[in-house]
C-alpha cells in the first residue's frame, strides 16, 4: 500500500508539487494522468527518495520498484545484467523468474540493451523492476515514444502481471486514454496539484478530462506521431 499525503516539493523557487495526496491500495491499479510539466516526474523522484519534499508524508508498505520514464536502461550492458541489477536490494539475482512472466526477453538475454527496439527496451525496464519482487510497481510513461501496437502489447502484459501477481500499479501517463482504460481509478495532476480524481469511468465521462486529455480522435493519438526510439 502507498499513501502520499499533502506532498510539497520545490525546485528552487518553483513549486513542482503543491499538496499532492493520493493512495494506492494493495493490488490496485491506479492512473495518474496529466500534461507535460504537471509534476509527474517530480512525484516519481520524491517516491524514489531522489528529492526531499518540503513537507508532507509518503508511507509505503511493501517493496516499490520503478519503471522510469524513457526506460533508463544500462544501455551498454546485456539484458541479463540489466535484469539482475534490478535485484540489487534483493537476494535472488537470477533473471529466470522474469523470463517466465516475460518470455520474449529470454532470447534477448545476451543482447546489449542499447541495441534493442524501443518496445523491447520497455519490456526490459519492466522486467528489471520485477526483479525487485515489488508489491507496488511505479510505471512512468509506459507509452512514450512507442508505436501504438507495441503500447497495447505492453499494456496487456502489465494488466496480466497486475491480475496474476496481485501487483499494485501506479501508471503515470500523458496518454490518458490508455491509462484510464487500464486502471480502475485515476487522478489528474495539473500544475503540481491533483485537480480531480475518481473511477476511470467517471473521469472518462468528465467533460473537463475529455476536453483536456482525451480529445475526440484516435485512442493513442497523443503518441502516435512520436518516432519509436532505438533501432527498428
Amino acid at each position: 500500500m502507498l499513501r502520499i499525503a499533502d506532498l510539497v516539493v520545490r525546485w528552487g523557487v518553483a513549486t513542482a508539487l503543491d499538496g499532492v495526496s493520493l493512495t494506492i491500495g494493495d493490488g490496485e491499479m491506479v492512473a495518474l494522468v496529466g500534461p507535460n510539466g504537471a509534476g509527474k516526474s517530480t512525484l516519481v523522484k520524491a517516491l524514489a527518495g531522489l528529492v526531499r519534499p518540503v513537507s508532507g508524508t509518503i508511507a509505503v508498505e511493501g517493496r516499490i520498484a520503478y519503471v522510469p520514464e524513457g526506460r533508463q536502461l544500462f544501455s551498454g550492458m546485456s539484458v541479463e545484467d540489466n535484469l539482475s541489477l534490478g535485484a540489487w536490494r534483493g537476494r535472488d539475482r537470477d533473471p529466470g523468474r522474469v523470463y517466465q512472466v516475460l518470455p520474449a526477453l529470454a532470447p534477448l538475454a545476451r543482447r546489449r540493451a542499447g541495441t534493442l527496439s524501443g518496445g523491447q527496451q520497455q519490456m526490459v525496464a519492466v522486467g528489471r523492476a520485477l526483479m525487485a519482487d515489488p508489491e507496488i510497481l511505479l510505471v512512468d510513461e509506459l507509452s512514450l515514444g512507442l508505436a501504438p501496437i507495441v503500447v497495447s502489447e505492453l499494456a496487456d502484459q502489465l494488466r496480466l502481471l497486475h491480475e496474476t501477481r496481485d501487483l499494485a500499479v501506479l501508471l503515470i501517463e500523458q496518454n490518458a486514454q490508455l491509462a484510464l482504460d487500464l486502471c480502475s481509478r485515476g487522478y489528474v495532476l495539473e500544475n503540481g496539484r491533483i485537480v480531480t480524481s475518481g473511477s476511470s469511468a467517471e473521469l472518462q465521462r468528465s467533460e473537463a478530462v475529455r476536453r483536456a486529455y482525451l480529445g475526440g480522435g484516435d485512442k493513442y493519438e497523443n503518441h502516435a506521431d512520436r518516432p519509436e526510439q532505438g533501432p527498428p
Partner: protein
Amino acid sequence: MSALVEYLISGIALGCGFALLASGFVVIFRVTEVINFTQGTLAVIGGFVAYSALTSAGIPQGLAEALGVLAAGGAGLTFGAVAIGKRGTPPLASLVITLGLSVAAYAAEIAIWGDQPISFSALPGDFVLAGAHLLRQYLLVIGVAILALAALGIFFARTYAGKGMTACADNRFAAQMVGINVRRMGLFAFALGGLLGGLAGVLLIPIQPLSFNSDVGLAISGFAAAVFGGLRSFDMALAGGLVLGVAESLIAGYWQASYQTVVALGLMLLLMVWQARRRAELA
C-alpha cells in the same frame, strides 16, 4: 641491440606502472565522473609507507609492500570522502578538491619522510635477455601489473559488485532507481583507485626513486594514458601506458633523459589527434 632490448623492457615496466595509475583514473572517472588528481599522490604514499615498513619497522619486503598498497587504498578512500562525500558536489568541484588534497599531502609527506628522494632495493638480481642485463624487478612490475589489470577486468565484467559499479557509470539515474547507492560506489571506486595507485608506487619506487613531489609527473603520465582510452577503457589505458613508458625509455636512452617526459607526452598528443581524426572519418 642489447641496449634496445634494455630500453624496451624497462620502458614496458615503466608503462605498466603508468597503466596502473591510468586504471585508477579510469575506475574513479567511470563511477563518479571525477578526475582524481591525487592519483600520483597515492602512488607516492604507497611507496613511502612500504619504505617505512621495510626500513624502520623491519617488516619483510612483500608484506611491507602490501602494507604500502593498503595504506594507499585507505588514503584513496579518505580523499574520496573529502572530494565526493558531500551530496551533490559537482564533478568539477571534486576535481579541484583532489588537486588541493594532492598539494596538502606534500606537507604531511615532508613532515614524515622529509624532502629527499626515497627508494628501496628491488627484487635482487638480474637476468640476461638478448645480451642485455635486466633487473628482475622489471619482470615483477610487468607480471604484477598484468595480473592486477586482469583481475580488475574480471571484477568489472563478472562480479555483481563490479556490474553495479559499471551500472553507475552507464546510467547514474537508473542505478539510483534500482537502489544502488551511487555515492557509496564512488567511495569504493576511490579506494580501488588508491589500491591501484599504491601498487604502481610500490612497484616503481625501486626503479625510480620517489620524492614528495613526484606525484605531478606520475599523475600526468597516468592521466595521459587514461585519456588515451577516453578515460573509460582499461585496455586502451594499458595501451596508452605502454606507448608512453616505452617512448620515455627510448628517448632517455638514445637522446636526453631530461626530454623524456615532454617528448613522450607530445607523442601521445599526436597519437590522440590521429585517433580522433580517424574516429571522425569513421563516423
